[in-house]
């Protein structure tokens, strides 16, 4: 039925030609998908901006955050000049000064340093614990039952009351060892990490359980790879995407928890600015100076919002079923 020309075309299709496009790496695909999510792009950019800002801000804005300047106290932020030309405001202190004349902009930068440092380190610590527990219980059958019971137990602990409890109880011994600020940093980071690793552990365990039955693991084992090698070289790279997604969630919760602790008055010592601390200090004088509540609050919320959007975008970009649609 078919004529000569179409037969040649069929054979032509079967020929092994050179691929027309250069091969694309997986991360290139991920980046292309990620770029489509405008919110995620904006969130990632804002997070980068805040992180760089708090890292390098003190070099650009070199007013000490704790420097008292009692003559220039209670300045309003610069934007009040728009509707009230006689207000005490100016470019010397763009966000104004507080009741002791400390520059609020400098306090925000230093506060952001602390909040971001706590957030990042608590997130990394929680990820390490969660991944370790998840891998151990997914890969080694003997440990599975007990580790998962432990995870369930920790999940049913009342987190916020226990965090409050731990912070008030261990404040004294740790500050005498690491100094008031260092002790509080160690305490808050470890308390947040110890109470937020469970979700990561569960997700990682589920993925490891499915992955370990696949052929490539069997192949790796048959050439004599040790368990440690299999986990490091074959399993962990395959669970990196759920870990990254839960990392963003962890960063958001860590920042919020730290600010909540500072807000409730159990966080860092009083002359040590963090975003939550600035907010809670300003609540008492909210009626006269609402901007002192709004500015740190907006910064916390924007950071957390951008982290959440970043997580959303990452989830879409790292999921091969959604990618390319």
């Amino acid at each position: 039925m078919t004529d000569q020309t179409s037969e040649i075309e069929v054979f032509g299709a079967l020929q092994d030609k050179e691929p027309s496009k250069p091969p694309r790496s997986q991360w290139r695909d991920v980046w292309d998908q990620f770029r489509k999510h405008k919110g995620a792009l904006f969130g990632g950019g804002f997070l980068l901006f805040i992180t760089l800002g708090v890292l390098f801000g003190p070099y650009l804005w070199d007013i000490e955050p704790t420097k008292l300047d009692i003559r220039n106290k209670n300045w309003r932020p610069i934007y009040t000049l728009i509707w009230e030309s006689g207000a005490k405001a100016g470019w010397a202190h763009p966000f104004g000064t507080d009741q002791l004349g400390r520059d609020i902009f400098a306090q925000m930068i230093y506060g952001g340093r602390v909040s971001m440092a706590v957030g990042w380190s608590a997130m990394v610590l929680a990820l390490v614990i969660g991944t370790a527990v998840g891998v151990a219980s997914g890969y080694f059958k003997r440990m599975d039952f007990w580790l998962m019971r432990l995870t369930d137990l920790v999940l049913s602990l009342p987190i916020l009351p226990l965090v409050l409890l731990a912070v008030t109880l261990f404040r004294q011994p740790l500050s005498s060892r690491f100094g008031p600020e260092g002790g509080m940093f160690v305490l808050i980071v470890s308390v947040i990490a110890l109470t937020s690793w469970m979700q990561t552990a569960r997700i990682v365990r589920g993925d490891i359980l499915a992955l370990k039955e696949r052929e490539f693991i069997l192949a790796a084992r048959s050439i004599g790879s040790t368990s440690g090698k299999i986990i490091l070289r074959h399993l962990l790279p395959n669970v990196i995407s759920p870990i990254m997604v839960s990392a963003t969630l962890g960063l958001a919760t860590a920042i919020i928890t730290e600010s909540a602790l500072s807000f409730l008055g159990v966080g860092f010592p009083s002359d040590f600015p963090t975003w939550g601390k600035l907010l809670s200090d300003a609540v008492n004088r909210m009626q006269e100076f609402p901007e002192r509540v709004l500015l740190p609050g907006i910064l916390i919320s924007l950071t957390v919002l951008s982290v959440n959007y970043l997580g959303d975008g990452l989830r879409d970009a790292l999921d091969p079923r959604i990618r390319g649609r």
Partner: protein
Amino acid sequence: MLNFTIRRLLLSIPTLLFISLVIFMLLQLAPGDPMAQVPLTVPPEVKQKMREALGLGAPVHIQYIKWLHQFFVVEPMVFIDFLTNKSFLLSWLPDTHLSMNVDAVTGELVQRQRVISWQTRSPVMDIVMQRMPQTLWVVGLSYVVGILIAIPIGIYSAYRHYSMFDQAGTFITMVGFSIPPFFTGPLLIVIFSVSLGWLPSIYDTTLVVDSWANFKTQFLQMIMPVMVLALQTTAQISRYMRSAMLDNLNQDYVRTARAKGLKESVVVMVHVLRNSMIPVVTVIALGMPAIFGGAIITENVFKVNGIGQLLLTALFANDLPMVMTLTFIFAILIVLFNLIADILYGVLDPRIRYD
């Protein structure tokens, strides 16, 4: 199903015991001394006696078992006595005296040892019962309001996927998800109490609602705390609702329902909604204890003297029995609602079999 429920109930007993042990051991490390407030003129042997009266002289494991006995045996007895003696509903029953002991010397009825707060020297559970209504009103109402707002938003934004409403709804829930309550609280106070002067910024718990004017004040002062808590609930639940509806809207049975000529409202509101509610109901049950935890901050912002505020003041005053009991009540709530969520899942979804 009954088997599963009983098994889970039995399993929750060791869980709760372990949690109580963890909390107890944490509190044992506390540096504070309940006698710190007693004047220095009080001689040390009297102080020692006072300490023993609070049950502090005994070894740690005895203290722990005593606390367990007081919490799980004596307090329920007191509660039963209260029900049969004074309560409105059950006072027709014969009066019981379960929590009373006959004193060996005088022959009179004496109350058994209950969990005593170091701060007020009165039973912890009495204070908790006084504070409970405030928390339940604010938290419970906010949860209901949050759910009532969240479900229609979730349904509509899933039905009109990628529409303007969906985009706006997703953005707003994301914002609600990200703004912590200790910022929304002061923000609302700045707007509605400071600038506009419409609502009171402090929750007055001494207010007795006996007239319309009082009811209006009560209503006005409840708006802000309820809205702050409801924002969190709404953000979470409408996200779940939307994704559950999206999962179901593309299923084959929806096409069948449309093909046989059912009205669109019936298809969406009956067939799809009922199937989508299964995961959402469990999420609602699971979120219940978390909202009690979140209420600690909101109660602090609006000065509601509920349970969360009680926990905070007890923590700062080093009132360990109170902290222990309250934290454990939170733990009971979590375990209980986890159990309820699991059972609901099994009841609502016939595909799920636990046996």
